[in-house]
């Protein structure tokens, strides 16, 4: 017997199951699992082409039913009888719970609802009167706060513009950087001076700084063989380095 069922009428797989159980006049606590599973799967097949997202939850329940069915088919060994729980137990518990909240939902539907069945006195002040009115007893929750902020952000779209920052790379700073490194290590390879993270501008300024250091005879450059590593060595004792960067306000290469 094929049952024509529209899934939209059910708020979820539990709802559908309850419907099937009732329409087959079964006791929730003693579900004929084989029959129900069969019915349920037929319906799932019918709705195969429906919304995947909804179907996902219905499929999960289908898998659950099949699992229970297979467990029911397993022979129960005599020693384990006491520990063995009815495979349907959890499902029954969930169904009964769900049934209860579904009934309460029905009760809510019947309760007199504000603005539907009962109406409070409502006064709408014209705008002029609201002015200067004290806003007291405003109760909002975290959600309202977050939502308001979210809306604020949405109303104010991210400003898309390209800011061009003129980076002023000072040879001075790079000289100091190189000296700092040299103070730690005394000797640096050319590669170590030029960090791989540097972009073009920084590479250029670093190079200028190196040249400047050589010109000031603070650093010596040597190379053992052609194409071998170039080494920078600090020539001046640390104490004399302090007054070094004074004369070079001139050296702003931008």
């Amino acid at each position, binding site marked *: 017997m094929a049952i024509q069922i529209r899934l939209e009428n059910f708020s*979820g797989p539990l709802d559908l199951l309850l419907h099937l159980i009732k329409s087959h006049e079964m006791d929730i606590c003693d579900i004929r699992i084989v029959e129900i599973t069969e019915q349920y799967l037929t319906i799932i097949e019918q709705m195969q082409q429906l919304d995947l997202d909804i179907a996902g939850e219905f499929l999960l329940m289908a898998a659950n039913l099949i699992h229970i069915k297979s467990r029911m088919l397993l022979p129960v060994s005599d020693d384990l009888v006491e520990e063995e729980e009815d495979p349907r137990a959890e499902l029954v518990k969930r169904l009964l719970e769900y049934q209860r909240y579904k009934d309460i939902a029905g009760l809510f539907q019947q309760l007199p609802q504000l603005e539907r069945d009962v109406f409070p006195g409502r006064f709408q002040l014209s705008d002029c009167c609201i002015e200067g009115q004290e806003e007291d007893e405003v109760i909002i*929750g975290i959600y309202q706060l977050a939502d308001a902020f979210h809306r604020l952000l949405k109303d104010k779209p991210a400003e898309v513009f390209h800011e061009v920052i003129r980076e002023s790379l000072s040879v001075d700073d790079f000289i100091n950087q190189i000296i700092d490194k040299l103070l730690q290590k005394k000797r640096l390879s050319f590669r170590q001076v030029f960090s791989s993270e540097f972009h073009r501008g920084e590479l250029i300024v670093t190079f200028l700084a190196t040249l400047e250091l050589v010109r000031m005879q603070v650093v010596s450059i040597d190379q053992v063989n052609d194409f071998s590593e170039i080494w920078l060595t600090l020539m001046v004792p640390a104490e004399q380095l302090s007054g070094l960067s004074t004369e070079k306000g001139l050296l702003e290469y931008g």
Partner: protein
Amino acid sequence: MDNLSQLVEAFIFASDTPLSLDRLSVLLEQPKAQLRPIVEQLQLQYGVGDRGFYLAEVAGGYQFRTVVELAPWLRKLRKDRAPRFSVAALETLAIIAYRQPATRAEIEYLRGVDSGGVMRTLLEKNLLRILGKKDAPGRPLIYGTSRQFLELFGLRDLTDLPTLKEFAALDPQLITADPLTPDSVEVL
């Protein structure tokens, strides 16, 4: 009717939301003990009778509300149609009302379906409140019902809801579904 009684009546009449005794006490600078008999007197005067409205006790306060029987007529007064709640929304409200504080995962387990969208709508309508975060892995948000929820259904407080035991009495089979100690509903 003395002056104070008139004032209480006027305040309740003119207020947008139900006025609690606490609030009246602040507004009128009078102790609650003095106001309570006045409100009770007003409730008798404006009881459900032949008037078109009565003094209702909702959400911990007092409000004049029209009599339910007149609803079909009064709906004509409102331009926008009465809000209708989907089955999903009512189920979700029911679960949260009785199980609060509840996490989204708990609600979804009980309903067997994703409930994010429904909960969002209910939050937007101020019927739910975020109560905080649960001290559990992932620190999920925990939800409860709001004062507006009580106002919507004309409940004095959460204890005004039928207890699950009373509810189960209507359908004996449901008594067995009681593993979750839901009777300990927190009072707002």
